């Protein structure tokens, strides 16, 4: 599974520019599902059907393909690029960072001279792609082009670090579960969504189209286990996190119970998660049409939205087992 994770996290795909990551996911999940389609906004919907006459539920599992990034808004005479941010990117993290565009062009982020560190704002930063002037810069990029962090995956021994664990690790969990899922009484819709980082947008339209009986998001969550960090019960290595609440969703009690029951029955390490600020695609799914009972399986992750997001490989495997366990069950709601 580590190879799959490496492939997904290293692929380019800021919100609104998900073509490459969608292609990569199609290659990986295609052989294990019955149907694949791309909807008007670019969501990838992969369907694994129940055996005929099994009469199970329609379950939508959502993991988002997009990652945070930056978008070029201006090219100056000397070839420097000004930009706006796509999703929750902070200027502190960007400073000195390298970013990559869809065609592989690499740029480094520099700053205007600042009087005080607190003056650091996105408007003060620019991307230097090594161009000598505007004309040269515009040969490879231009206004409206997006870039993401330029980082590789490193295996720290049981723990993996990379850009875009949020939420390629969720996509990897879904793909791995599809690979291992032999038979299910349910129609399983694996939806790899677009534009989660800018407001759960892909989940909203795909959930309307799928119209599921049960919604499950698979996404990263914060941890409380770093020095003088967040006060939060979730820790790396503590197993799959079953979401109770975040700012987008109160997990449906029956969905939470279902997850807990599967984890207990199958001896899957798990922990409960209450996240104060943040949301996932389940926030959009559960409010679709007449409402959809929904919950979230979270992968505990440190340093979210930086180029170095860290997950525990054991937690990832626990999440795969938990998702597979749920999908295999005959679900009563």
């Amino acid at each position, binding site marked *: 599974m580590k190879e799959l994770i490496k492939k997904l996290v290293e692929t380019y795909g800021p919100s*609104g520019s998900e073509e490459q990551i969608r292609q990569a996911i199609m290659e990986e999940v295609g052989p294990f599902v019955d149907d694949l389609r791309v909807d*008007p906004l670019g*969501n990838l919907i992969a369907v694994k059907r129940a055996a005929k006459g099994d009469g199970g539920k329609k379950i939508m599992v959502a993991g988002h393909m997009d990652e945070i990034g930056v*978008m070029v*808004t201006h090219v100056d005479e000397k070839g420097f690029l000004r930009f706006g941010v796509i999703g929750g990117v902070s200027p502190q993290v960007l400073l000195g960072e390298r970013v990559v565009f869809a065609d592989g062009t690499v740029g480094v982020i520099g700053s205007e001279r600042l009087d005080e560190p607190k003056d650091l704002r996105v408007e003060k930063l620019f991307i230097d792609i090594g161009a000598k002037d505007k004309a040269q810069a515009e040969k490879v990029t231009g*206004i*409206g082009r997006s870039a993401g962090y330029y980082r590789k995956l490193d295996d720290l021994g049981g723990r993996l670090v990379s850009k875009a664990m949020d939420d390629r690790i969720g996509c990897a969990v879904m793909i791995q579960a599809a690979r291992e899922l032999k038979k299910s009484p349910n129609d399983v819709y694996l939806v790899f969504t677009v534009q989660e980082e800018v407001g759960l*947008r892909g989940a909203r*339209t795909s959930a309307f189209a799928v119209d599921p009986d049960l919604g499950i998001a698979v996404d990263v969550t914060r941890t409380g286990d770093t020095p003088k960090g967040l006060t939060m019960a979730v820790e790396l290595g503590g197993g799959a996190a079953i979401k109770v609440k975040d700012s987008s969703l109160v997990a449906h009690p029956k969905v939470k119970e279902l997850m807990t029951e599967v984890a207990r029955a199958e001896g899957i390490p798990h922990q409960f998660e209450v996240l104060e600020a943040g949301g996932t695609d389940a926030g959009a799914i559960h409010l679709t049409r007449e409402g959809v009972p929904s919950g979230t399986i979270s992968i505990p992750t440190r340093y979210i939205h930086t180029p170095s997001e860290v997950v525990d490989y054991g937690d990832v495997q626990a999440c795969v087992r938990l998702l597979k366990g749920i999908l295999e069950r005959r679900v009563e709601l």
Partner: protein
Amino acid sequence: MVTPAKTIELFRRLSEAPGPSGQEDEVRSILRGEVEKLVDEVHSDTMGDLIARRKGRGKKVMVAAHMDEVALMISHIEKEGLLRFRKVGGIDDRVLLTKTVHVGRDRLPGVIGAKPIHLQEPREREQVIKLDNLFIDIGARSREEAEKLVKVGDYAVFTTRFERFGSGLVKGKALDDRAGCLVLLETLRALQQTPLKLDLYGVFTVQEEIGTRGAAVTAYDIAPDIGFVLEGTVCSDTPGTDPHGQSTVVGAGPAISIMDAGTIADRRLVDFLVATAEENGIPYQFRRATTGGNDGARIHLAREGAPTASISVPCRYIHSPVSVCSLEDLERAARLLTAALKKIAEGGLKL
């Protein structure tokens, strides 16, 4: 290029008509009168959106421009006969002071009063007067007198007269988004004699300024394949702004959005609009701000989603009593949309 006098007169009527969010009927009636001649069907929905349909086989395209403008609403009448008010949409407190307004449907004249400089403490002069300390003076001497003329809940709108000035510029209130409404009308007019393999919906929406509300229900109803939004958008090309902070420049052509707070413009549509502008020799620019939002936020997320892009007329000083735009930008925006719709009808857009 010379803008026909008839078009300028129509722009004047649109700009001067009051159309606060939630009470767009005067603007709607002007638009209805114009659009009825240009399409197959016109109707209003329960919220007041005006939907003009040109029936046809082919892609279902929704083009939206909002009718409403930022305004004020009377919230309380003081015993001295002065009116307290709240904002309807995003208005900077700093632009309110001493402006004249029309209150209610009968356009009762009023002025937003303030303490004259002679009577202010030195400290007061350095501060922006907060909304809570402002009032509208309608010349009434008591609450009783005022209550005969206005009710709590009445709107107040700015009174700015529309004028041409400079070389090909106009100034007036509510160019955001009467400019977009005019672009939509002129596009439908330009296409009137052209057979089109399109199911085209021109939608004049309500309540954009308070949360893109009209667009939400119309997009749900229409369920388009493709969405376009026509806007009067932010521009700060005046001295003191760095080139990378300018957003748009008046006179440099219609602005194609790349991203704002509510929408990432569909990349395929952006590239398509750029190619269409270049093929037709229409100057264009990108909207270089990534803040703000428009009806596109609702349209692209309606039902199963629809690729959506925005074309805007750059307007200086929007959300104030007076804004400025270029007639040439407006014509170019209409030409760009006209060419784009023809191309889509001919199967020239691959999605």
